């Protein structure tokens, strides 16, 4: 079951889920890099202070320390913004976490261009660099329901995880019957013209694009890929096989992320389908007061997904237009 946009939102679903789990699991530690409230773990600090560690603004030390804590049997969840969780301490993640294959959970908030804070704060290549690391699981979830389930799903994985989370108001897209899986992508809708493959914040945009495309007579399938590594190749191949074209959508550079992963799957399967990758086109993103403006400027909006599908299918005439949604305060509309 799926909700319809604009979506209701909740606050701190991750922070709540982590506290609930940590109350059951003594091994869980919570590390913060001076961004405690912003990463929702003020809840953890308040409720389980004995297992909360503020490592300060020193991400290299935080990451190597987390690796050693994991060697001692703890399960450290490490929190900061996505840029400071991956880009800055990359060598520490490689040597202190990924190579020793330790159960450190790296949680990076504020993905892609959801931050108007400029290139320094925009994690646009985090999925690419984390995906390139042996042993690393990479997850980019779409809504609060997936977040709650993902926290429980990853806790006992033997190796490291990078969990990419939206900051602030989190939409509720899925119903309570939704089942997050570490091994399976989900086909949310079947169609035989175009397959939309999306993760994270771009799932709701893909759902909106699909509605507009279907109304214009384009039969559209939607594949939700919250786990980008290891990727569920079988489900992607099945959806792509049944369509004439494939469009990926990611809040990330198109170099090395979901679009690249899907391209690898299709090429290795020998499946010739026209592929369009919606995402940042090898550029940094500047100049914004609002995230929504940035998504439009850099071609990551619902309309860009529609236009890509329309063009990939070789449809003539103007592409159908996505309706402009009125979003009441506290609700969330796709970008």
């Amino acid at each position, binding site marked *: 079951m799926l909700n319809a946009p604009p979506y209701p939102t909740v606050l701190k679903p991750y922070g709540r889920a982590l506290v609930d789990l940590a109350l059951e699991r003594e091994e869980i530690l919570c590390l913060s890099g001076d961004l405690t409230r912003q990463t929702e773990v003020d809840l953890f600090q308040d409720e389980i202070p004995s297992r909360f560690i503020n490592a300060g603004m*020193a991400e*290299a*030390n935080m990451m*190597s*320390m987390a690796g*050693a804590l994991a060697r001692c049997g703890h399960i450290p969840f490490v929190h900061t913004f996505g840029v400071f969780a991956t880009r800055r301490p990359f*060598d*520490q993640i490689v*040597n202190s976490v990924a190579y020793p294959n330790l159960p450190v959970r790296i949680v990076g908030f504020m993905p892609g261009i959801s931050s108007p804070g400029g290139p320094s704060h925009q994690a646009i290549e985090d999925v690419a660099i984390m995906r390139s690391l042996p042993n690393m699981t990479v997850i980019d979830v779409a809504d609060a329901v997936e977040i709650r389930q993902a926290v429980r799903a990853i806790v006992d994985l033997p190796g490291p995880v990078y969990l990419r989370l939206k900051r602030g108001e989190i939409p509720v897209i899925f119903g309570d019957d939704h089942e997050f899986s570490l091994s399976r992508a989900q086909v949310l809708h079947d169609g035989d013209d175009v397959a939309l493959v999306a993760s994270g914040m771009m799932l709701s945009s893909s759902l909106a694009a699909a509605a507009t495309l279907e109304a214009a007579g384009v039969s559209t399938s939607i594949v939700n890929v919250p786990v980008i590594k290891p990727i569920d190749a079988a489900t992607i191949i099945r959806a792509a096989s049944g369509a004439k074209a494939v469009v990926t959508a990611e809040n990330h550079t198109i170099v090395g992320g979901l679009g690249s992963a899907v391209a690898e799957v299709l090429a290795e399967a020998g499946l010739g389908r026209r592929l369009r990758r919606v995402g940042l086109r090898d550029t940094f993103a500047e100049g914004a007061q609002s995230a929504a403006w940035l998504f439009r400027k850099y071609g990551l909006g619902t309309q860009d997904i529609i236009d890509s599908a329309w063009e990939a299918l070789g449809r003539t005439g103007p592409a159908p237009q996505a309706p402009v949604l009125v979003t009441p305060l506290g609700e969330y509309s796709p970008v």
Partner: protein
Amino acid sequence: MIAGQTRELERFADRIRLRAVKMVAPHGFGYLGQALSSAELFAALFSGPYRRDRDKLVCSPGHYIISAYAAAPDLGILSETDLSTYGQDGSSFEAVGTERSPVVDLTCGSLGQGLSGAVGFALSAQLRENLDSRVFALISDGELEEGQVWEAAMFAAHRKMGNLIVLLDANDSQVDGPVSSITTIEPIAAKWESFGWAAFEVDGHDADAVNHALELAVGESRPSVVIARTSTVHGLSCLPEGADGHFIKISPELVDAAIAELEARLA
């Protein structure tokens, strides 16, 4: 310390040197200088405060693993036969430490990360209220150029990690030459003290002095550092003047001379 014990430490240090010469001999070059400079540190640590059943040992610069290996037979961990495969194809005793490296609890070839690992071990002991576990971390002076070392040093002092002891091999050697010619890291002791650490500066080839400093460090309620002033050619008078201490080249003739010199001292 009584004279006999001092002599035993000196002999232990020379056994480390002898085994290290034999380990690099088949290659004709290697990290012999690191073993020569840190021999007394490892001898004193393994003869004194380090308790293998409850303490943690970090060898931050991965290429110093040669010293840990060369010292290990005295702990009954590795055999001379194990050491003979050091750095060879297919051996798990890689010349730059890896996850497979025995003897130590953590090592890393990417420098500057080991102290953070040691801080993680010490933090775990704190969280579990395990008061009887010490964490020893060997780090090198060149590593002090890496910012992460100081991130870790600050955090350790903030958390009052009295169970954390750093053995700093100040051999004034890095890849491009003397550390002092590349970056001014002095005053080393004052830096650590200003970060909230107890610092003990010693002649790193005076086994008795190293041992005494370690005893003081173990008794500290703050994190502590033993700064050992050392040389990468110490203990082998046969090495030529101006040998590159970071990566010593050693001919078969020089190997023979080195073994003869050390065996004579150990006889």
